[in-house]
């Protein structure tokens, strides 16, 4: 590697066992400071599980995992996390601002008493700054339940960023958003990655909305992983080896990519889970 930036995520020969079954193994990968990496792969390949390992919620069965030069789960507030799509109950009467604020100090015991001056004011400024950054100022004071999916997602990104993390882990942040919102949120995450110098690792179902923002792709399939620049990983040859079966990567005229033969590719959404399951029992 010619890149001299420090590594924020390092996995060597990592493996995960869930319920006695090895989900993936022999995984080596490095994500460096300020990189935008996507975790791709079919349903059930263990993409979200990879994030859980990085968060220290699941142990790696073998090898070594380091996150920001610490054991997973020990980097504290230096790691920001956006769990898989949470939607707030439409009746929830709490403002977006409050949601972001909880990301800053919600874990602290006691109550935020008014009039303690300094700390409260600083927290308020930080929250306002983040809401401005994600472009949510217009609706941050509305009850979160009444915000649209895209608006909620922006506020949740602000919440994940409010503690100034050096690494941001996102679990399918574009899931269940419409296409214009997918591309707007992808652009926002790309911009945050560059401007705030936050390394981003994002689990994604479809690579296309984020493709031109990406530095690195981690493709999980068949119990193994391949990692590298998107142009090297998302090719017919690499993916065919990974899946252990013939897979074609087709490029549309607008640059969008479709993986054909991948049992869980978005193009064959309707029967994805069924055929994905078949594929994995074979793998």
């Amino acid at each position, binding site marked *: 590697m010619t890149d001299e930036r420090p590594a924020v995520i390092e996995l060597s020969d990592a493996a995960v066992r869930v319920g006695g079954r090895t989900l993936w193994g022999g995984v080596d990968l490095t994500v460096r400071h300020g990189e935008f990496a996507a975790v791709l792969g079919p349903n059930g390949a263990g993409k979200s599980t990879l994030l859980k390992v990085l968060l220290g919620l699941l142990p790696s069965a073998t090898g070594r995992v380091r996150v920001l030069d610490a054991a997973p789960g020990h980097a504290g507030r230096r790691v920001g996390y956006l769990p898989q799509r*949470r939607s*707030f109950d439409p009746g929830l*009467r*709490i403002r977006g601002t409050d949601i972001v604020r*909880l990301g800053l*100090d*919600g*874990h602290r015991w006691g109550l935020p008493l008014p009039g303690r001056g300094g700390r409260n004011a600083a927290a308020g400024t930080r929250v306002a700054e983040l809401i401005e950054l994600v472009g949510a100022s217009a609706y941050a004071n509305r009850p979160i339940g009444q915000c649209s999916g895209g608006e909620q997602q922006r506020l949740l990104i602000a919440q994940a960023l409010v503690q100034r993390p050096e690494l941001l882990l996102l679990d399918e942040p574009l899931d269940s958003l419409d296409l214009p919102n997918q591309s707007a949120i992808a652009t926002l995450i790309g911009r945050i990655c560059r401007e705030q110098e936050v390394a981003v690792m994002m689990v994604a179902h479809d690579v296309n909305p984020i493709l031109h923002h990406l530095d690195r792709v981690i493709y999980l399939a068949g119990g193994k992983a391949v990692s590298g620049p998107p142009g090297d990983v998302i090719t017919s040859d690499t993916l065919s080896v990974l899946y252990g079966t013939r897979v074609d990567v087709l490029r549309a005229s607008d640059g969008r990519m479709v993986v054909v033969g991948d049992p869980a590719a978005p193009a064959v959404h309707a029967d994805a889970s069924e055929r994905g399951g078949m594929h994995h029992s074979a793998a």
Partner: protein
Amino acid sequence: MVNAFRAGTIVAVMAATIGWFMVLRRQTFAGHTLSVVGFPGASGATLLGISAGLGYFVFCVGAALVIAALPRAGQHRQSEESALTGTLQAFLLACGYLFVALYKGFLNGVNALLFGSFLGITNSQVTLLFVVAIAALAGLAVIGRPLLFASIDPHFAAARRVPVRLLSVLFLILLGAATAEAAQITGALLVFALLVLPAATAQAITARPAASLPLAVAIALVVTWLGLLTAYYSPYPVGFYVSTFAFGTYCLVRFGRQLLDLTDCRPGGLLEEAG
């Protein structure tokens, strides 16, 4: 009457504060269960010849622990939890029936258990109520912020190392203790009205936590005082007045909110939704 006001004030503050979290956590059904299991608790205690207050306390906190111990994994945890809570409630109420039947000539007591005895409260009862309220509120002050976090966003809170499960257990115990104490004075039925209505009203008025919590307490105080005053000058039970005033306020606020939302949507609200 002075003691009724004292007790009413303490109960209003405690119930509104704990109820505020209960409404936010969507645990009104658990709260309802805890407030009615006071009935078998007290009737069982009377049957055994021990203090009804102790029976209330043991049953409410015990039921809180059982509800807290219920498994809540998976996506449909809310509906599963309410089904199990309902099962528990039905069984404990049935036990209450049995206790009343075993203890012959208890009829007046049942009335007091369900509807409370706001009038004729002793000084020592007020003191006990005060101590429990202070303890419950102090406990809530300590866990307040992480509890809010865990209530709104349990998965994210867990990722931030907030002990979500422990907080849920602690909250249910606080809820159990508070309802047990309050139900002795206001009756099992009225404490629920004070738990839910002021909190739901305040949350409908404002989405700012720092404003809606004090507002819930204020609403609870006003309806309790008004209810006591009205009941003093009329032959009907205090529980009816307190609940009715609280319900009336809630209806007015919901109606007002509906009107506001309607006028709010006209200029661009609907378009924004589509975008």
